[in-house]
């Protein structure tokens, strides 16, 4: 950047060259340090400190109480379910568009729409689902008056595990489509031809050639979708208020008003979130690097 304003290379200036280079990324480094690294370190360190600052494992151990474990449990189950169905349906749609012999003009709009829908999360998304599947929502009312099916009587409730999973799928499916389409494009025609020359059926081609190649991409995207829904706060709060005790909602309430009655337990809760999303993203990055071998 501007910090190394230096005219042409004279001998003494040349000696100074290396340190001056690093000055160029100093603003960026300071910004990252102040607004990403230090706040995160504060949380991580806080998770291992007593209120007086001394080191302890108590906070992390205290996470293993039934109520907090239940919150992690339901959060993880929602994330797994929405990542699984997001992968499944997203893969189906992407495969239909890329390989299904659909008209070419469909592809552009689908990709654009996926871009929009994967960014349409948060509070408005919750409203959209309340207006659709809520107690007086469009589909609920339609099923009741036209077909006589009462969703509520059947035990469906939008403010529940399945309700939240269904809602998250609205941004999970498009995200899967966006990520997996390039991978499907990477399946070379020659592989299919080679397989069929060797006598493979369509099912054999998928089972023994295409799916093994795609597996790292699919699993990697699964990990990304998992992290994506695990950290989602706004949708859950706008949808359920605080009636469903998942980790992000618990942490939100804790930051607002110390509902756990122990500030350092809050740090530990947040630390647990970093561990879970960090693990999922590590899996994603690792599998992505593996799958890119086939993409060249």
């Amino acid at each position, binding site marked *: *950047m*501007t910090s*190394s*304003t230096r005219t042409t290379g004279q001998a003494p200036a040349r000696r100074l060259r290396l340190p001056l*280079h*690093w000055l*160029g*990324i100093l603003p*960026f480094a300071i*910004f*990252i340090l*102040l*607004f990403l690294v*230090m*706040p*995160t*370190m*504060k*949380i991580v360190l*806080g998770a291992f400190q007593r209120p007086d600052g001394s080191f302890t494992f108590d906070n992390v151990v205290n996470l293993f109480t039934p109520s907090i474990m239940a919150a992690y449990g339901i959060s993880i189950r929602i994330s797994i379910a929405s990542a699984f169905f997001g992968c499944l*349906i997203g893969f*189906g*749609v992407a*495969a*239909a568009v890329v390989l*299904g*012999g*659909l008209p070419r003009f469909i592809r552009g709009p689908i990709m*654009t729409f996926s*871009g*929009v*829908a994967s*960014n*349409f999360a*948060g*509070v*408005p998304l*919750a*409203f*959209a689902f*309340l*207006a*659709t599947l809520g107690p*007086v*929502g*469009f589909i609920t009312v339609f099923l009741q008056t036209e077909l006589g099916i009462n969703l509520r009587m059947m035990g469906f409730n939008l403010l529940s595990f399945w309700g939240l999973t269904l809602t998250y799928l609205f941004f999970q499916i498009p995200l899967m489509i966006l990520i997996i389409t390039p991978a499907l494009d990477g399946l070379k025609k020659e592989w299919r031809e080679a397989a069929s020359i060797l006598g493979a059926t369509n099912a054999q081609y998928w089972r023994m050639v295409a799916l093994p190649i795609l597996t790292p991409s699919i699993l990697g995207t699964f990990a990304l979708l998992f*992290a994506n829904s695990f950290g989602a706060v*706004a949708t859950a*709060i*706008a949808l359920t208020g605080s009636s469903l005790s998942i980790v*992000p909602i618990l*942490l*939100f309430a804790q*930051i607002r008003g110390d509902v756990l009655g122990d500030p350092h337990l*809050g740090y530990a809760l947040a630390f647990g*979130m*970093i561990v879970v*999303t*960090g693990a999922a*993203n590590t899996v994603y990055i690792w599998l992505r690097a593996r799958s890119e071998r086939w993409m060249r």
Partner: protein
Amino acid sequence: MKRLWAWGALTIGLLYFFLPLIGMTNFSLKMRRGEYSFDAYVKVLADTRFQDTFTYSVTLALCTILVGVFLVVPTAYWVRLKLPFLRPYIEFVTLLPLVIPAIVVVFGYIRLYNTSSWLPLTGTALGTDILLVAGYTMLALPYMYRAVDTGLRTIDVTTLTEAAQSLGAGWITIIARIILPNVLVAVLSGAFLTFAIVIGEFTMAALLNRPAFGPYMQVLGANRAYEPAALAVIAFAITWGCLGLIQLVSRFQKSAQRPV
């Protein structure tokens, strides 16, 4: 047979996308009993809190875009020009905001910059706004950096820099008048995406207690029936508009580059 299966998958996907959109649009028009009307929209748009929070969020989004551009463009340029071996590390750092949930980052802000700390940003409204812009810059960083870095890949940074230097340009001139115009489309893409992210963001604004559009929507959603659906339609239109503009500028670039 194969076609049939493909159409089936596509239909399921499209139903999943469109039913909620139809649902919210339908609901937003039903405020007047027995007939469709725009009452909910009129009510929302006339609400002074809507106008205030929306203006506030637009202002914050513009500030975030400015900070993001000032931070990302020179850094990405400098790394490409002088420190190419750092690229993988910088890229990793810019992906970190996707790994660390926003709620954790803002929790850190609240603890690190509270009124009794060395930098009491949360003590004043302006300080909290600065903190919020910083947080939003972090949220948008993965997208902004990737957009700009991809843009830089398409131009010959070294040659352009040497050419500019031999004509006597300083670093500010090079970045502002050579590099920035060349990656403008990438910067605009990043900017529109940033706008779409910031305008409805809820978690950070709510926890920092700032009167932004996201928390306003949430409060309205807890208290009203039809207005939230109207807000959802408006928010969807904004997201759609931002993503549409990205497509538009990148198409504009493609057609501009063709004769070359």
